[in-house]
């Protein structure tokens, strides 16, 4: 276990996520269909599959690798969540541009950059009950964590965020039109994020 991650680690992660979220397609479609248009499962699985498809060709420059991932994702999926993921990946690309290795302790910073990119892209705020709240929970959990425990901490934090926000109303996205009915229902984007994190490889 090295103290840094590389473009190859990214590629491995992308392929693991693609494989993992495939099984969550129906669950996520169903969840999005409760108050939204029911396309989230397709968005997530098709998006990550597209990233996995280009992952073997990731350049060594981690910034460029993130950019390639961003482009691949948004090409197949232009719905809100797809744009959020692509924006996050682009922010990570800017943050890591020109480097071939990134120290694990920098991960919370990357998550923060991704969170901010989503916030400015989607004109939302923390507390709106979106995928951004999941990112923030994960970021907090990762600060100062040894990278051996990062995956587990992230997965736990994503689940905890779901539980925390379940009883609150949606303030963004399609579900906002039915804010009252959204109480008690998991935000589909947050659920998707939890499934993504759970699919990450241990390394």
């Amino acid at each position, binding site marked *: 276990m090295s103290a840094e991650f590389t473009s190859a680690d990214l590629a491995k992660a992308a392929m693991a996520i693609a494989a993992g979220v495939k099984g969550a397609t129906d669950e996520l479609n169903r969840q999005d269909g409760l108050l939204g248009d029911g396309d989230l499962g397709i968005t997530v699985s098709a998006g990550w599959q597209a990233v996995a498809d280009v992952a073997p060709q990731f350049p060594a420059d981690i910034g460029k690798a993130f950019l390639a991932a961003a*482009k691949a994702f*948004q*090409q*197949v*999926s*232009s*719905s*809100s969540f*797809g*744009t*959020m993921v*692509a*924006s996050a990946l*682009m922010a990570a690309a800017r943050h890591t541009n020109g480097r071939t290795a990134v120290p694990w302790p920098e991960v919370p910073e990357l998550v923060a950059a991704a969170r901010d990119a989503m916030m400015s*892209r*989607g004109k939302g705020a923390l507390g709106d009950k979106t995928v951004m709240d999941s990112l923030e929970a994960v970021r907090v959990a990762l600060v100062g964590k040894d990278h051996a425990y990062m995956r587990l901490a992230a997965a736990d934090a994503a689940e905890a965020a779901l539980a925390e926000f379940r009883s609150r109303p949606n303030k963004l*996205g399609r579900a906002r*039109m039915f804010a009252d009915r959204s109480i008690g229902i998991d935000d589909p984007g947050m659920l998707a994020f939890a499934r993504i994190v759970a699919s990450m490889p241990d390394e």
Partner: protein
Amino acid sequence: MKKILNRPVDYVDETLDGLIAVHPDIYALPERRLITRAAGMRKGKVGIVTGGGSGHLPVFAGYVGSGLLDACAVGEVFASPPADKMASAMRHANGGAGVLRLYGNYGGDGMNFDMAGEMVEMEDDIVSSTVRVSDDVASAPPGESEKRRGVAGMVYAFKAAGARAEEMADLDEVTRVARKAADSCRSLGVALTPCVVPQAGKPTFTLADNEIEMGMGIHGEPGIWRAELRPADALVDEMIDRLITDMPLSRRDRVSVLVNSLGATPLEELYIMFRRVRTRLGDIGVDIVMPLVGRYATSMEMTGATITLSRLDGELERLLKAPCHCAFWTVAA
């Protein structure tokens, strides 16, 4: 789903194939889901790109043409095109003088167009600007126009910006004019029956047999009220009342009026509506300039209509009357 189509996944691409086959003199399809002018981009002219979901013809792709737009990124039915398609549209519309992104105010489109802007800035060094049209008064209160959806009023912004760009104005100027045209119009729609998104295969909403919805969005977004169908004049009266409450008009004001079918509502009924619009605007002493009646922004086979009022000053009136040519709107020189 009673629609004339082949596989639902091919609906959009087959539509575009047909469009360019019928009008090769106007449109080109340099890559999948990207419509540009057949004549190509004029060097030194500000480019104007738009984009959005399919199913609204002539919006969006149909308004590519001389005196109008330069390129359009085409999405699935009622879904935003991906950002890289928009980036591609911007590259095609780049004549070296910058590119205006001019489109309807929808979350997905906005996020993707923003991302596309960042992409072409990073990779191609293209200067660009954004104007979002948000003319639908039913979608948010007057103060919150940034939350309002863009509907048929878009056409006036396309026309003004397109005409100004054709005059070789610079990006700031084209952007200013587009924003002015967008800010000067207000729209309101009424829906009678839904349409079916091919890949969904079921109606976008349901209304009872004699029920209509005032203010419903072009994708079936919730409106102001649902109630029994009323006489045409009563509907027009309410629509005009709401529009002029939002944008007060006074004696001697000059406005263009667009009475637009959402698809199935026939011309006959649009003319019946226009009659009443004319009476109502006449009553307050407003002059109607270059009225437009027809199908300018639709939702496939949805039944219903929108009314748009576009208040004109000398500049906007001049640009509205400037020549333009696409398959769906020609103003002769």
